[in-house]
């Protein structure tokens, strides 16, 4: 009898960590039990649906952010569920992708990037990672560049297969230009046109597309944080 009890104890000890999931222990003491259960269920469903298990940690982190900000349990659960859905959509749009790409693509969807843009980005760089391009795309949108324009600019760069350094430089230059008072859309289009005009793989057609007048008209051109435009 004692031997059987020992066997069961060994079995339980071996199974417990795997069943609990190490990332979910971070929720202990940070959210109530009901919220914790809901988040675990969302993460399990996402994993069963095909999301990489590593991304469950991102869902947990989103819940912890909500807890740190004092959000209500319902708001935390909604945010986590929404993120899981975006991750699923991002994975579907990208096709085979690394977790970091899915993570970045989910945030791109959050700012209004279309799933078709994600697919086109993947097609433009079938063998390269798209996480840097997506992070810069989101950054441009966050700085006030309209999402359609930002998407076109990033796609144009991706089609020329520029390196990560180009995206880095573009982000820095656009941020600096905006900080100096330039309109976000003008800064982004001008800087991208410069990259395409001087880049080795550029074509006149691509340069024309990123600088098309339609990209910089009929959109909000007020820098973020600046004064409102006159009526």
């Amino acid at each position, binding site marked *: 009898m004692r031997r059987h009890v020992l*066997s069961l104890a060994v079995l339980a000890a071996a199974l417990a960590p795997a069943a609990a999931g190490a990332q979910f222990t971070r929720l202990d003491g940070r959210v109530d039990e009901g919220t914790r259960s809901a988040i675990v269920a969302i993460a399990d469903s996402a994993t069963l649906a095909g999301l990489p298990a590593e991304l469950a940690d991102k869902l947990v982190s989103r819940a912890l952010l909500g807890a740190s900000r004092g959000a209500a349990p319902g708001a935390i659960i909604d945010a986590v569920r929404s993120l899981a859905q975006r991750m699923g959509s991002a994975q579907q749009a990208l096709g085979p992708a690394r977790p970091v790409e899915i993570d970045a693509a989910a945030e791109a969807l959050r700012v209004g990037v279309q799933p078709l843009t994600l697919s086109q980005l993947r097609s433009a760089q079938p063998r390269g990672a798209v996480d840097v391009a997506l992070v810069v795309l989101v950054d441009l949108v*966050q700085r006030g560049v309209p999402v359609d324009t930002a998407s076109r600019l990033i796609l144009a760069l991706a089609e020329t297969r520029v390196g990560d350094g180009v995206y880095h430089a573009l982000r820095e230059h656009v941020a600096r230009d905006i900080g100096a008072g330039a309109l976000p859309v003008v800064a982004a289009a001008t800087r991208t046109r410069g990259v395409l005009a001087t880049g080795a793989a550029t074509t006149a057609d691509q340069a024309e597309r990123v600088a098309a007048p339609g990209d910089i008209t009929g959109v909000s051109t007020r820098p973020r944080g600046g004064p409102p435009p006159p009526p």
Partner: protein
Amino acid sequence: MSERREFDVIDAAARTLRSPVVVDPAAKQRLVAALRDSPVPRVGAGRRAWHWIARPRPVMVSPLWTAAAAVLIMIGVFRAAIGWERTGEQPAAVPPAPGGPAVAAASNLHAVQFVLVAPGAASVALVGDFNGWDTGETPLAPSASGGLWSVEVPLAPGRHVYSFVVDGRRWIPDPSAARAPDSDFGTPSSVVLVGERSL
């Protein structure tokens, strides 16, 4: 043959069988010499082990212990597979990233330096998905002359979202890093890509 005659024959046979056998004294020596000269077949350790494994014999095993062993093996295989999958995407080197946090590689983790210029701040903390957004987890240290706050944090490869918390209540993004979208909680935050494609 009469019965008496049969007994005599049997008795004679029994006497013959009971009598000691006379062995040639040299026969034993010849046998020993023959054995000494004959080659002894050598069996290697591997062959003996294989024979021990392959030899069929009944084995007494508790079903409970068998199940426990099977579960432990499965867990080991699962964890090894996860570890392999994660280490499979670890880069060997990290290129310098212009702007944003400075990143330096060390094994699987990469030391990332976060810096904020906040001259009037009494305290600055770093919060992010890597520390559970805990405002007490990663304080920044002020420079000797004041105004510049910094901290180095080892981060796993991937995309990390973070913010600075000034004086325990004001959340601000990293002015020099890429911006992250709104997290649904009204938190301004920044992004750092750690690993092969640092940003």
